[in-house]
């Protein structure tokens, strides 16, 4: 398999058991993917474990990739996020939470600016900006930093039930905004 091949072709080769294709994906994507796992776990060793698990899942599940359902990069990122979230759950989500980069609402506008790089991101940003601020913060903290409902509630100093319903409402609103 040619390591320069498009990502969907590499994933198809991985499904056929091609280890070099898996290595090519690792070489090409691991920096981005390790960043995603690190943001969730805030611990390099744990993030390395998550990326390890994610690549084993990728090897096992490559045949489930369906390009009609979304881009290959997003699909890979999803596998890594779920591997990191599973690890976070196994660890009781006891990650260091005094990380200065994870923080206060002040971080949020900068977080959203990174969405402006492409059209789909700009649409998502526009929709996120129609949400109540706390609903938006909850969604961002959960997606990017892997916070549970309880951790979002603690961080935003709101009752757990309130946070849960804000996030749900926010999701449904996002969905209709993006439709």
């Amino acid at each position, binding site marked *: 398999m040619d390591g320069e091949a498009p990502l969907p072709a590499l994933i198809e080769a991985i499904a056929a058991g091609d280890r070099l294709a898996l290595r090519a994906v690792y070489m090409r994507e691991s920096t981005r993917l390790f960043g995603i796992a690190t943001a969730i776990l805030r611990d390099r060793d744990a993030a390395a474990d998550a*990326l390890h698990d994610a690549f084993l899942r990728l*090897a096992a599940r490559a045949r489930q990739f369906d390009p009609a359902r979304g881009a290959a990069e997003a699909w890979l990122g999803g596998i890594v996020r779920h591997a990191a979230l599973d690890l976070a759950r196994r660890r009781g989500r006891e990650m260091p939470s005094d990380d200065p980069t994870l923080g206060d609402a002040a971080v949020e506008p900068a977080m959203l600016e990174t969405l402006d790089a492409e059209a*789909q991101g700009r649409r998502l940003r526009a929709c996120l900006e129609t949400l109540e601020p706390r609903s938006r913060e909850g969604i961002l903290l959960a997606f990017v930093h*892997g916070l*549970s409902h309880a951790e979002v509630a603690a961080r935003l100093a709101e009752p757990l039930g309130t946070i849960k319903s804000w996030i749900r409402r926010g999701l449904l609103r996002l969905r209709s905004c993006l439709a």
Partner: protein
Amino acid sequence: MSDRPTPEEERSALAGEYVLGTLDARRARAVERAMAEDPALAAEVAAWEARLAPLQRVAPPEAPPPGLWDRINDSLGEARPAPPRPRRDWLWKGWSFGASAVAAGLALLLLVRPPAPAPERLMTVLLTSREQPAWLVEAGPEGIRLAALNRQPAPEDRALQLWALPPGATVPVSLGLIPRDGGSVAVSATAIRPEPGMLIEITLEPPGGSPTGRPTGPIQFIGRLAPARGS
């Protein structure tokens, strides 16, 4: 009008929470198991992954520790190799990769030009004899799904049986019994091919279902499939 979410919104919110990662381990596993049997839920999870995918970029890239690839490679070496796929000659292989690339291009096009041309979605609400909504029915090429809107269990000594009557047909086809305590029912498309105008009905039958293979008891709920508009 009430603000209560519809069953369809409930399902979407659950899929969204799964993708967001806020569900605890038990509920996350339950969603994963349900996805294997519920194509509509799996599709909604995939839709949420796509909707929120731009947020993946918010995490700054970071180089993994050296040696991680070797560790992955070692772990895979111990695992059983993937089952072999049917062999194809090079021509087919090239065609197949080309098709993937075309499909990927198509997927990109769909991302920037929503909504995607999904296969036809059908739906109806089954009403009681008093015109009260009782079941939300969604159907597509994969089958039919019912979600209880206002669950009323059948009498102890009776069963609820689900039927479909294609347009023009005179004899309904049994789609099976409604589980006594289930809030939702899924019927695969192998039993019936949903089409617009198809009547969906639920009758009251003896325990175990109609002995004749045709409805014998009164109709409890009925509705007709029609194309779903918007989403």
